[in-house]
C-alpha cells in the first residue's frame, strides 16, 4: 500500500471517527446521568437521516439542516419523557427493555413510513466539493467532520464546565438526591442531556450520511452500538473519552476495511468492548467507583 493510500484511508477514518464521536457523546451523557444504555440512540441518528431527506426535498439546505436539528432534538426529549421517565424508579432491566422497545418502534415506524428500501441521501453541494492536496483528494465533508467535531466538543465542554446548567448536570450525574436538595430540577437536567445528545446525533447523522449516500431503517443499529462501544472504551460518562473512542474505532474500522477484513471490522469493535470491559471496565479515562456492600 502506498503512503498516499494509507493517508487517504486515515483521512476517511478520521472523518468516520468524527461522526462516531458525536454519536458516542450522546451515549456517554445519558449513561452518565441515568445509568442507561440508550439503545434507541442509534435509531434517533437514523431518523435524523430521514428528516434531512424530507426537509431538503422542500427547503433550501440551511433551513433543512436547521429543521433536522430541531426535530431530532425534540424527538430525543420526547422519547425520554414518554418511555424512560415513567420507569426511573423501576428496576434497571425495565428501562433497558424500554429503550430496546423504542429502538424497535423507531425501526418499524420508519420501515412503515419510508419503506425498507434504501433512500438516497440528498447531496448538499458545498459538503461534496472535492479538495485536492497533492495526491490526496477529499470531499469537504471529510475534512469538515473532524474539525466540526472538535469545535462542538469544545463548546460542549465549555457549556458543561462553565455554565450553571453544566454544573447541575455534573452534580446530577453524581448524586440525584443531593442535587435535588440544591433545588435542581432533575427532570429538566435530564431533558437537557437528551437534547444535547440528540442534537449531536443529528449533526453526526448529516456528516455520516452525506458520505454514505443512503439511509435505511436499520442504518442506525450498528453505528449506534459501535458508538456505545466507543463511549465505554473512552470511559463511560467521560466526554473526551467518548471522542477519543469514536476516533479510534472509526480509524481502526476504516483500516480493517482497507486491508480486506471488512466483515471483521464489526467483530473487532465488539472484541474491543469485551476486552476493555474485562481489563479496564472503567475505560481509558473513566474514574473508579467504589461499590458498597
Amino acid at each position, binding site marked *: 500500500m502506498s503512503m498516499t493510500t494509507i493517508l487517504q484511508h486515515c483521512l476517511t477514518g478520521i472523518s468516520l471517527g468524527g461522526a462516531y464521536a458525536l454519536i458516542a457523546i450522546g451515549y456517554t451523557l445519558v449513561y452518565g446521568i441515568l*445509568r*442507561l*444504555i440508550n439503545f434507541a440512540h442509534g435509531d434517533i441518528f437514523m431518523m435524523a437521516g430521514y428528516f434531512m431527506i424530507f426537509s431538503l426535498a422542500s427547503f433550501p439546505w440551511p433551513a433543512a439542516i436547521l429543521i433536522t436539528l430541531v426535530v431530532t432534538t425534540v424527538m430525543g426529549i420526547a422519547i425520554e419523557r*414518554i*418511555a424512560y421517565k*415513567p*420507569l426511573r424508579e*423501576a428496576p*434497571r*432491566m*425495565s428501562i*433497558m*427493555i*424500554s429503550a*430496546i*422497545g*423504542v*429502538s*424497535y*418502534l423507531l*425501526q*418499524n*415506524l420508519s*420501515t*412503515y*413510513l419510508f*419503506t*425498507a428500501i434504501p433512500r438516497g441521501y440528498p447531496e448538499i453541494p458545498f459538503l461534496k466539493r472535492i479538495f485536492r492536496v497533492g495526491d490526496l483528494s477529499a470531499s469537504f465533508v471529510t475534512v469538515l467532520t473532524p474539525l466540526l467535531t472538535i469545535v462542538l466538543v469544545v463548546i460542549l465542554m465549555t457549556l458543561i464546565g462553565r455554565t450553571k446548567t453544566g454544573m447541575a448536570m455534573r452534580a446530577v450525574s453524581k448524586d440525584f438526591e443531593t442535587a435535588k436538595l440544591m433545588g435542581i430540577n432533575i427532570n429538566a437536567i435530564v431533558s437537557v442531556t437528551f437534547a444535547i445528545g440528540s442534537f449531536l446525533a443529528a449533526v453526526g447523522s448529516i456528516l455520516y450520511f452525506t458520505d454514505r449516500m443512503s439511509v435505511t431503517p*436499520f442504518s442506525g*443499529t450498528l453505528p449506534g*452500538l459501535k458508538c*456505545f*462501544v466507543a463511549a*465505554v472504551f473512552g470511559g463511560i460518562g467521560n466526554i473526551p473519552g467518548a471522542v477519543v473512542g469514536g476516533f479510534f474505532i472509526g480509524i481502526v474500522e476504516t483500516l480493517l476495511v482497507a486491508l480486506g*477484513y471488512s*466483515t*471483521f471490522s*464489526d*467483530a473487532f*469493535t*465488539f*472484541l474491543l*468492548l*469485551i476486552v476493555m*470491559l*474485562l481489563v479496564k*471496565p472503567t475505560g481509558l479515562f473513566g474514574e473508579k467507583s467504589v461499590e458498597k*456492600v
Partner: protein
Amino acid sequence: MKKKISKPTIYSLGALALFVAFLYWLDANRLTQGMVISVLQKGAILALVATSMNLLNGFTGLFSLGQAGFMSIGAYTTAILIIPVKNLDGVYYMNGVHPAIKALRVVMAQAPPFMQTIFPFVALLLGATIAALVALVVGLAVLRLKSDYLAIATLGLSEIVRSIFSSPQFDQITNGSYGLNKIPNFPPMFFGLIPSLITPFIITGVCVAFIVLLINSSYGRAFKAIREDEIAAEAMGISLYKHKEMSFVISSFFSAIAGGMLAMYMRSIEAKTFSITLTYDILLIVVIGGIGSVTGSVVSAFLVTAAKEWWLRFFDQPLSLFGFEVPLFRTGFRMVIFSILLMIVVLIYRKGLFGTNEFSWTWLTSKKARRKP
C-alpha cells in the same frame, strides 16, 4: 397406596391429547392448513428460545442479549450436517465446499438408513454442544460483568459470531454472505410414527420440560436466589460464578437447538437472519409473556407469532370499509401496531401476560378473584 390422579392433571392430559389430535389432523390436512402449521411451528421454535432466554434473564437475573449468536451456531452446524450431499456443490456454487466437510458428508451418506434418520437429531445436539462450549469459555469472562455491561457484551458476542459466519475467510464452511439453503425440513421421529410436522413440537416439549424441571430443582432455586439478591445468595453459600455459568451454558445450549430447528423450518439461512433484531424479537416475546414465567414465554411465543404473521396481516393490506379507503393500512403498519402494543406492555402493563406466575388450572379459575384492584 394407590395414587389418585388429581383434576388438574386430568385437564392437562386432556388438553395435551386434544393438541396432539389437532396436530395429527393438521398433518392430514397440511395442504390446506399451511398458514396454521407454519405459525405453530415457528411459535414452537420461538417458544424454546424464549424459554431459554427467560431461564437466563428471568430466573437467574442475568440480562443477556446473546441469543441470536448461539442460535446461529446451532443453525449453521445443523445446516452443514444435513444439507443433502447431492446438493452441497449447488449450495456452495460460488466458493466450493470445504474438502473436510465434503468428506465427512460423503462418509455420513454411506451410513445405514436407520443411522440416516437420526443424523438430524445428532446435528442438532452437536450444534447445541458447540454453542454450550462457546458459552462456557465466554462465560468465564463476561459473567463477571454486571447488568447493562453484561447485556452489551453478550450482544457484542452475538455480533462477533455473526461477522465470523459471514466473513469471506470462512466461505467454504459457511458460504459467507450467500448463506446456506436447500436445508431439509424437520425429520420424522420414531421411524415415521410421528410425522415430521410434529417433530418441532416434540423437541420443544422435551427441552422446555427439561428447563421447567431444572427451574423447580434445587439448582433452579439457587438461580432465583441470585436473581433476587446476589449478595444474599452468596452469603447463603451459593457460588455465584458456578451457578451463573450453569445457567448461561444451559440457556445457550437450548438456544442453539432452537437455532437448528429454525434452519430446518426456514430451509435457508444466512448470517443476517441472526442479527440483533432476532434477539430483540425474542426479548419482546419474553417481556410480553412475563419475565420469570415459562408458560408466559411459551404462550407469548405462539400469540406473538400468530399475531405478527397471521392475525395482524390485514394491517398491511389496504382496507376499504363501506367504500371508504381506510388510511394508514399498508405494508409495515402491522409492525408499528405491534411495537406500540409492546411499548404499552413495557410502560403500563409491566408484568406482561403472566408476571412471574405459571399457568395452572386453579390459577385460571381464580384469576378473576386474584386480579389486582
